C-alpha cells in the first residue's frame, strides 16, 4: 500500500495560480471553493519589500483533527493516507472546519448548481449548451473509491455538506497525478509515494531541507515544503486575496 504525500518547492512557485484553475476544472468546485489555494504574500516595508507564494492544498494530516471530531465518520483517513469526505454521510455540522487549523474545508452554503461562475440557466448560454449538463462536469466524481467503496471525489455535489481537496482521488486511483501537480508549469508541486525511496517526493525530501505547516499543533501533515523560506511568520501580509464570497 503506498503512502501518498506532496512536496511543494517554494523556490519554484511563481504564484501563477494555474493549480487553482486546474483544481476547479477537475473537481467541479463551485464559486468561492478553493480546494487548492495559493497565498501571495508581501513582507517588509517599501522599498524593502519581498513577495513570496505558498500553495495550500489539504494537508492530509496523519493526525487529522477533522477526522477526530467528525460525529458520523464522514471524514476519514484512508489506508493510503488520503483524508476523504463521504458526502453521502456528511450531516453538515461543520465541526471539521472549525477543528482544521489550515482552513481547507469548504461548505456548500447553497445548491452548487446555483453557484457556478456562469449561470447555466441563462437562455443565451442554453443555446450553446443545448440544455445539457454543466459542460465541464466531471463524471468520475460520482463514482465510489477505495476499499470502503464510498463516494468521496471532487466537489459541487449537494448543498449543506462539506467538501475539500481529495488529492484528486479519482485520478490517483487511475495512477495519474493530482490535477494541480499535473498542471504546475514550474514543477513546484510533486506528488507520490513517501514509502518508495525512488519516488520524486522521497528524493526531494532526502535532498532538500523541508518543513511542514503548523507542526507545533501536532497534526503530522503529509504536505512538505522545501525551498529557502521558512513557514510564514506573523509579519506577512496577504496580497491579491481571492474573491471568496458566495
Amino acid at each position, binding site marked *: 500500500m503506498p503512502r501518498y504525500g506532496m512536496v511543494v518547492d517554494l523556490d519554484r512557485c511563481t504564484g501563477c495560480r494555474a493549480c487553482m484553475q486546474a483544481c476547479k476544472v477537475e473537481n467541479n468546485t463551485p464559486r468561492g471553493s478553493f480546494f487548492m489555494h495559493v497565498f501571495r504574500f508581501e513582507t517588509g516595508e517599501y522599498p524593502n519589500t519581498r513577495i513570496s507564494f505558498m500553495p495550500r492544498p489539504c494537508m492530509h494530516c496523519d493526525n487529522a483533527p477533522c477526522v477526530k*471530531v467528525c460525529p458520523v465518520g464522514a471524514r476519514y483517513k484512508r489506508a493510503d493516507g488520503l483524508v476523504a469526505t463521504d458526502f453521502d454521510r456528511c450531516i453538515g455540522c461543520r465541526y471539521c472546519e472549525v477543528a482544521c487549523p489550515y482552513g481547507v474545508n469548504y*461548505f456548500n452554503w447553497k445548491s452548487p448548481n446555483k453557484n457556478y461562475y456562469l449561470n447555466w440557466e441563462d437562455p443565451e448560454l442554453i443555446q450553446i449548451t443545448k440544455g445539457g449538463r454543466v459542460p465541464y462536469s466531471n463524471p468520475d466524481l460520482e463514482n465510489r473509491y477505495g476499499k470502503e467503496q464510498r463516494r468521496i471525489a471532487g466537489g459541487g455535489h449537494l448543498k449543506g455538506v462539506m467538501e475539500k481537496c481529495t488529492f484528486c482521488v479519482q485520478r490517483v486511483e487511475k495512477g495519474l497525478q493530482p490535477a494541480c501537480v499535473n498542471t504546475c508549469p514550474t514543477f513546484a508541486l510533486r506528488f507520490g509515494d513517501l514509502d518508495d525511496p525512488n519516488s520524486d517526493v522521497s528524493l526531494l525530501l532526502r535532498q532538500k531541507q523541508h518543513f511542514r505547516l503548523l507542526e507545533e499543533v501536532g497534526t503530522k501533515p503529509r504536505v512538505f515544503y522545501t525551498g529557502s523560506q521558512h513557514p510564514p511568520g506573523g509579519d506577512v501580509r496577504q496580497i491579491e486575496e481571492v474573491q471568496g464570497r458566495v
Partner: protein
Amino acid sequence: MATRASVERLPYGIGRWSAGWVAVTGLSLAVLALGVFAFARQLIEGEVVTGLRNIGTMGGATWGLYVAFIVYFGGVSFAGITIAAMIRLLNLKHLRPISRMALVLAVISIILAALSVLIDLGQPFRALINLPLYGRPMSPFFGTFSVVISGYLFAGLVYLYLDGRRDAAICAERSEGVRQTFYRLWAAGYRGTPAERERHQRATFWLAIAILPLLVIATSTLGFVFGLQVGRPGWFGALQAPGFVILAGVSGVGHIIVLAAILRRVLGAEDQLNPHVFQWLGNLLMILTATYLYFWAAEWVTTSYAGHHHEVALSNALLTGEYAWLFWLSVGSLLVPFLLLARQFVTGQYRLGVMVVSGVLVNVAAIGKRILIVIPSQTHGTLLPYGTGSYSPTWVEYSVVLGLLALGALLLTLFMRVFPIVEIPQYAEGG
C-alpha cells in the same frame, strides 16, 4: 356547569382563559411563525441565507449565533435540573416551590437546544438518521447529542413526572372528564399515604444523586467541543469545561429568578415564592457570578501575559478591537449584578427588583460570552495568515433564534394551563 365549577377549583388558573394568557400565547405564536418562515427559507436556499461563511479564504465564521444558542439553551437546562436536584438532595424545604418551574425550564430549554443543533446543520434530516446510525463517541460533539440532549431530556422528564405525581393526584380529585383522566395517568395511583411518600422521597433522592454528576459531565462535554481544539486560538484550554458549567449555572439561576418573579405576580403565589426563596437564589447567583468573573480574569491574565501571538491578536480583538463592545457589555453585565447582589448580601436588604434586573443582566452576559467564545476564534483566530474575517448574523438567524425563544414561551404557557407550575401548598391538600 359542573365542568366550569370543577375547573375553578383547580389552582393557579389552570384551564381558565385570561386576557394576559391569550396575549402572551398569541404573541409567541406570531414570533414562532416568523421563525418557522425564516427556517423554511434556510431549508430551501441553504445556509447561504445566514451570515455564516467558511473560515479562511472566505473570511467568515462557520459557527455563529445558532451554536452560541445551543450552548446557551444547554446551559439553562443544566442549571434547571441541577437546582431541582440540589433542592431535593440538601432537603431545602422552603425552596420546593421553585423546583417544578426549574424542571419545566430545563425540559423546555433542552428541546430548544436540540432544535438549535438541527437548525445549525446543513443536512438536518439526514442527521436524524446518521447520528444514531454512525455516531462516533470519539467526537467531542457526541456528548452534545447523547449525554446532553438525551440525558437532560430523560432526567428532566423523569424528575418532572415524579415530582408532579402528588399535585396530579390533587388535581384529579378536583376535576372531571378528559382532564381528570390526564391527571390520573400522571398521578399513577398516588394516594399520599406515608409509605408512598417515603418511597417517593427515596426515589427522588437517589435519582438526584445519580443525575448530578451526569449533568456536570454533560455540560463539560459542551465545553470540550471547544476546549479540545488545538487549532483555534481562544478555544484550547482546560478552563473551558469548568467555565461552561459555571456560566450555565449563572444563566440558569438568572432565568429562574426572572421566571419566579413573573409567576409570583401572575399566579398570586406570594406565599410560596416568598422573599426567602429569592434571597437564596440571589445569594447563589452572587457566588456563581463571582466564580465566573474569577475564571474570566484568570483566562485573560494567562492569555495576555504568556499567550502565543495568535492568542494575543485574538485577545486584542476582544479587548479593544471589533468585539470590544460586546466584550465590555458582557463583563459589565456580570460585574454590575455581582456588585448589586453583594451589596444586598452585605446589608441584608433584599429587593426583588434588584434581583430581577440581575437575572436579566446575567443572561445578557451569558449570551454575549457564548458569542465571544464561538465567533472571534474563527474570524480572528486563523493560524495561517488569512485576512481577518467578519461575521454578522442575518435576519434569518435573528428570526430563527427569536422563534426558538417564542417556542419556549409558548411551551411554558401551555404547561401552565394544564398543570400547576408551582407546587400546591400542603394546607390546600385535599380541599
